[in-house]
């Protein structure tokens, strides 16, 4: 009873603040009268609804917190076990999806977008999730990859497949180059400097007009070819449709792009999963847990951090290269801070260090807003609300447990409470 009273008081306080916040813009409506004079007329009904929702929502949330049973061990274990089935099921779905009859081209396009972010998420997961280095400037490597391809293609006439490894290598080189100055920084300071690096790269691209085309970007970046076969709407010899004697159709190219990004994303995932079970991956995780202990065990902390930056950046570069070839056009506008924030949100929402978490989170972060298009202005409101609810319900992300990389007996998932978050 006492608890209920205090909850009630808490909810009242929330309602009061809701009144303050919503009052100025929900409580009154700006309108024009017949003489086109502006006037305010109060809308207490709307304000009352908003305040009531906040009050009830807070009360319900507190009740739920009070009565929420602690997740029992067998439930967590069952979840970890079901994870083993979810991953292959998702993979099969990803491969089959474009061939399902009646799937509109737009869905395949959305799949391409989701998987691009999935790949970025997996790349950043190495830096943030495994090595525990909070990187807010990941978009820099995405931009380096995209511009490497764009510039190599337009200046030297190279195609997508030749440029893909080059873009990865260049991005990795920048990862090391940018990694050096931040080696000594930790936590918030590391985050700020990486954030600045992301902005520096974007500003250099914007202002170095003679090389990068400045704000106009680079156009006419070639699309990828299948062993030299182009995907062109004109058909004819040397094109995919002409070679196989079928009618050219836009979905052929979309599908091709879909499988390229699926392949690239799976490569990222496979390399990360393998590395996690290797000395290097274990050293990253150990670094996240305790840097000083790592040093006492003879692990070269500098090199280990740099490899995390470099390998994470490399996959960002691959994704950037793909982004450039998909759109055929890149400009600095595509590489703003919001991209870094989205990718970081995917990693955090999925649960730092979890590969499957990144998949689920990128579906939520990219797929949900796209699916909600029809809701128009309420889209972002609902999306934002959904994110808040998810983080309240699962504060360490969708998949917060960690699977050991090696075990003598049966591997048991490790709870989030024991896992350090790192942050440099």
């Amino acid at each position, binding site marked *: 009873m006492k608890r209920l009273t205090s909850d009630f008081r808490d909810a009242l306080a929330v309602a009061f603040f809701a009144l303050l916040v919503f009052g100025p813009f929900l409580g009154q409506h700006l309108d024009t009268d017949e003489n086109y004079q502006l006037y305010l007329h109060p809308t207490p009904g709307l304000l009352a609804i908003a305040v009531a929702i906040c009050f009830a929502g807070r009360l319900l949330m507190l009740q739920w917190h009070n009565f929420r049973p602690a997740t029992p061990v067998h439930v967590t274990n069952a979840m970890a076990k079901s994870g083993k089935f979810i991953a292959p099921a998702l993979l099969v779905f990803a491969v089959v999806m474009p061939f399902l009859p009646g799937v509109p081209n737009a869905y395949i396009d959305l799949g391409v977008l989701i998987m691009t972010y999935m790949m970025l998420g997996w790349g950043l997961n190495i830096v943030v999730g495994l090595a525990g280095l909070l990187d807010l400037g990941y978009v820099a490597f995405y931009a380096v990859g995209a511009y490497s391809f764009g510039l190599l293609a337009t200046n030297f006439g190279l195609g997508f497949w030749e440029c893909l490894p080059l873009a990865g290598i260049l991005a990795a080189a920048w990862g090391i180059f940018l990694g050096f100055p931040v080696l000594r920084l930790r936590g918030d300071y590391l985050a700020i400097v990486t954030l600045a690096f992301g902005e520096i790269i974007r500003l250099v691209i914007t202002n170095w007009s003679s090389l990068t085309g400045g704000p106009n970007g680079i156009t006419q970046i070639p699309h990828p070819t299948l062993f030299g076969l182009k995907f062109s709407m004109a058909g004819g010899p040397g094109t995919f449709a002409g070679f196989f004697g079928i009618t050219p159709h836009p979905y052929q190219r979309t599908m091709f792009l879909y499988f390229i990004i699926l392949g690239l994303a799976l490569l990222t995932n496979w390399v990360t999963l393998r590395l996690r079970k290797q000395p290097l991956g274990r050293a990253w995780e150990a670094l996240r847990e305790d840097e000083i202990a790592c040093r*006492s065990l003879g692990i070269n902390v500098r090199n280990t951090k740099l490899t995390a930056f470099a390998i994470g950046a490399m996959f960002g570069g691959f994704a950037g290269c793909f982004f450039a070839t998909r759109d055929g056009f890149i400009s600095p506008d595509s590489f703003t801070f919001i991209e870094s924030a989205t990718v970081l949100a995917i990693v955090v929402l999925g649960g730092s260090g979890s590969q499957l978490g990144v998949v689920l989170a990128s579906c939520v972060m990219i797929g949900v807003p796209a699916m909600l298009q029809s809701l128009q202005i309420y889209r972002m409101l609902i999306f934002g609300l959904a994110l808040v609810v998810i983080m309240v319900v699962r504060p360490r992300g969708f998949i917060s447990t960690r699977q050991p990389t090696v075990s003598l007996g049966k591997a048991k998932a490790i709870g989030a409470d024991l896992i350090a978050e790192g942050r440099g």
Partner: protein
Amino acid sequence: MTILSVADLTMRFGGLTAVNNVNFIAERGHITAIIGPNGAGKTTLFNCITGFYKPSDGSVTVAHGEKSLRLDKLPGHAIAKKGRVARTFQNIRLFGGMTALENLLVAQHNKLQASTGLGVLGILGLGGYRAAERQAMELAKHWLHLTDLYDRADDPAGALPYGAQRRLEIARAMCTDPVLLCLDEPAAGLNPRESSALNDLLLKIRDEGTSLLLIEHDMGVVMKISDHIVVLDHGQKIADGTPAQIRADPTVIAAYLGEGDDDDPDAPIAEPAR
């Protein structure tokens, strides 16, 4: 034969001299203990030896057969890698979110990483990596057995009881294959039974050929297992000898009882930096 020699070691923090001109030698195959009242400079000395501080003056040399290596000249991680000097921490520093077994494999990082061919062969599962990993697992199992942690190998290190964490930290340090193991208060917080099990473990480590250097408050542990004791007070060495000699030494007794000292006996001497 000498394994570690500390010569004229001085460590100053601004105007505070925490360790003042300390000389001592640790013998190979011995357990050498550093004791002293609180604030005597034990942990500072220890951090200088294990590379966590750069000494202001003096040298720390570890002998590898004929060759010797200046630890104070090595970068932090090379102390364990090249110098083969491992350490544990007073406030345990395990990788809490990793299992006990994983902790022991991380300790063998350098050996394993060398077998992965810059990581590429390891990813592809080629080369000598598999053999190296099997070997690493055997070593890890060996130490899990010795520290009585075999049954808890798959449990996260952070969930182990305190005594088990202490033992795991020692096992982890031993997995780096050191010639000298430095322990910072290994018996702190252990009950008498765990403490005596620790004695047995340390003696076993010594008998397997690793020399030990330890800081300890627990006189029961120190007097029982040490071959050689160095006593520090106010940053200076005041005595050096076998347990029997130390027990009879009047300066040591005075330091511990605070005789002839008007001010706080625990405070290190403050003197202006040179």
